[in-house]
């Protein structure tokens, strides 16, 4: 590692030293020295691979024969893949709405309270840990010990997952959260919401604080209640941030595969496009289909990004 960093530093130093020694450098030489490394890297690491993948998506599993749009047709029509697309849709609708909703409500509730900083840190902390770590945490919450038949309640194996214990305390039967479809997808979504709510809360809290005091004061003098304050003042004032947060989380959700892979491996009907891409490309050895799935992912994300960028430009103009 030290060697690599030193090598990199030396290369960079050489470029800069060369540039600074030139008495009257030409514009393009300067530009090339400064922008060159970045452009080369991007061409090699993003532009060329993206084009290759688009091409590969029109070829067969081994990349030998051109088969047109067959991969796309298969990805969109086969039952197994339709299930995957359906799951992805559920993820992309539920995760942004739930995380943003919870983040917004929480940001309003702890705003200006005595424990604001601490309270925010609690919700925000899951952002720092990896999705793999978060998946382990929740797998433990969901842990399930099978109920033995013909064994009295007192001698049943003790549940070590909190959720099943809560169910037992409330008089219910333990439930295998990750195995039983279609609800298991929802229990995976909980993990992503748990991670993303902190992000939503941070952004929204900042824009709640930016609402001018006189507007809030005026509303209060008019005698609005908490709900009216929320729906007539707070939400309209933070609408641009709401849009940014919703679309950003949606984009992140589309690409997520860590949670599905760590918790269920995509089995029991929980797979999503990002996970299926990995499975097809690296496990099933069907690179054409994997490429098609990656391109489909890209096509779904594209409008979200365009919308997001336009929204961001708008807010910047207002500012």
């Amino acid at each position, binding site marked *: *590692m030290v060697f690599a*960093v030193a090598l*990199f530093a030396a290369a*960079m130093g050489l470029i800069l030293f060369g540039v*600074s020694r030139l008495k009257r450098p030409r*514009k*393009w030489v300067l*530009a090339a020295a*400064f922008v060159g*490394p970045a*452009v080369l*890297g*991007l061409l090699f*690491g*993003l532009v*060329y*691979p*993206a084009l290759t*993948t688009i091409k*590969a998506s029109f070829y067969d599993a081994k990349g030998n024969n051109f088969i047109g749009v067959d991969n796309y047709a298969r990805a969109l029509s086969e039952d197994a893949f339709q299930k995957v697309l359906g799951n992805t849709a559920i993820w992309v609708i539920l995760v942004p709405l739930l995380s943003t909703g919870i983040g917004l409500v*929480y940001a309003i*509730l702890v705003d200006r*309270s005595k424990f604001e900083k601490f309270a925010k*840190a609690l919700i925000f*902390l899951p952002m*720092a*840990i990896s*999705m*793999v*770590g978060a*998946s*382990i*945490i*929740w797998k*433990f919450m969901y842990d399930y010990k099978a109920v033995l038949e013909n064994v009295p309640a007192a001698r049943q194996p*003790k549940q*070590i*997952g*909190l959720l099943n214990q809560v169910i037992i305390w409330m008089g219910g039967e333990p439930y295998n959260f990750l195995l039983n479809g279609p609800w298991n997808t929802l229990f995976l979504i909980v993990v992503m919401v748990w991670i993303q709510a902190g992000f939503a809360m*941070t*952004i929204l809290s900042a824009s709640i604080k930016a609402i001018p005091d006189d507007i809030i004061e005026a509303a209060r003098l008019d*005698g609005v209640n*908490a709900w009216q304050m929320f729906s007539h003042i707070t939400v309209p004032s933070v609408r641009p*941030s709401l849009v*940014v*947060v919703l679309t*950003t989380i949606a984009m992140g959700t589309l*690409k997520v595969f*860590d949670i599905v*892979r*760590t918790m269920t491996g995509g089995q029991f009907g929980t797979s999503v496009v990002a996970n299926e891409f990995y499975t097809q*490309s*690296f496990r099933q050895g069907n*690179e054409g289909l*994997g*490429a098609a799935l*990656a391109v489909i992912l*890209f096509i779904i*994300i594209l409008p979200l990004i365009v919308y*997001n960028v336009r929204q961001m430009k708008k807010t910047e103009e207002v500012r």
Partner: protein
Amino acid sequence: MSNTEVPVDQVGTVPTPSTFDKVEHRADTVRKTMANRIGSAVAIVIALLWTVPTVGLLITSFRPERDIKTSGWWTFFSNPTVTTDNYVSAMTSSSINLSNYFVNSLVITIPSVLIPITIALLAAYAFAWIDFKGRSILFVGVFTLQVVPIQVTLIPLLTQFVNWELNGSFWVLWLSHSIFALPLAIFLLHNFMTEIPRELVEAARVDGAGHVKIFFSVLLPLLVPAIASFAIFQFLWVWNDLLVALTFAGGDNAVKPLTVYIADLSGTRGADWHLLSAAAFISMIVPVIIFVGLQRYFVRGLLAGSVKG
């Protein structure tokens, strides 16, 4: 919020016109406190839901293996037995030996933060302060590359790396993480650079400073907060990454980072909670320290770059 409290002894007085307003006001106050109470209760419930899962696993990681397997972590409070055995065996036992993967994670992450920031700083400087032909087109091009999902690039990159016989080395991870970070890094740093007053740069130029000198002595010190916030972002991102590492280093124990190994562990030894819980927390220590220590910068970076592609 309720700073206008009505004395208790006024309860029950007949509402004469002069006190009528007060009663009205008191009803209002009661309503507000009620709303506040419900609000606080909701906030506390959310905070608990967000904290309990982590705390549960944390407590588990310090309980003896036997206890973990036979009783829930909440019984810890009635029967507190603490041990660090799980951590010791996760870090040093020959079959798990997380310390190797911990070092791998560090070795992967540090250059993957330094390299893109350096390259991005140079490029952002050029885009902001060197007036060359095709500058704006190139900048838009770089910015737009944020839309390319990493998934799209993985297989062609893997093929290239295999051709160059780089596969299974740290070089592959450093290179890919650095490149994937560039569009956002250039974009953010460029935004910060253009906010620096033009006069400052002009003045240095009149004094005869070249681009290299301006870059190091004028701009770099002013950019420290921006660099810090992006560095934290990139650090957390690389440290927590699973997809890139799995693709390029998934099969090789010598370069595998913690995330990949723990994901494997969860698949093969999913019931060994004494090891899994300790392993999960070992992987969280570094990012959480970074996060708690530099939270200020992290939040600033989040607010500046909330639009990540």
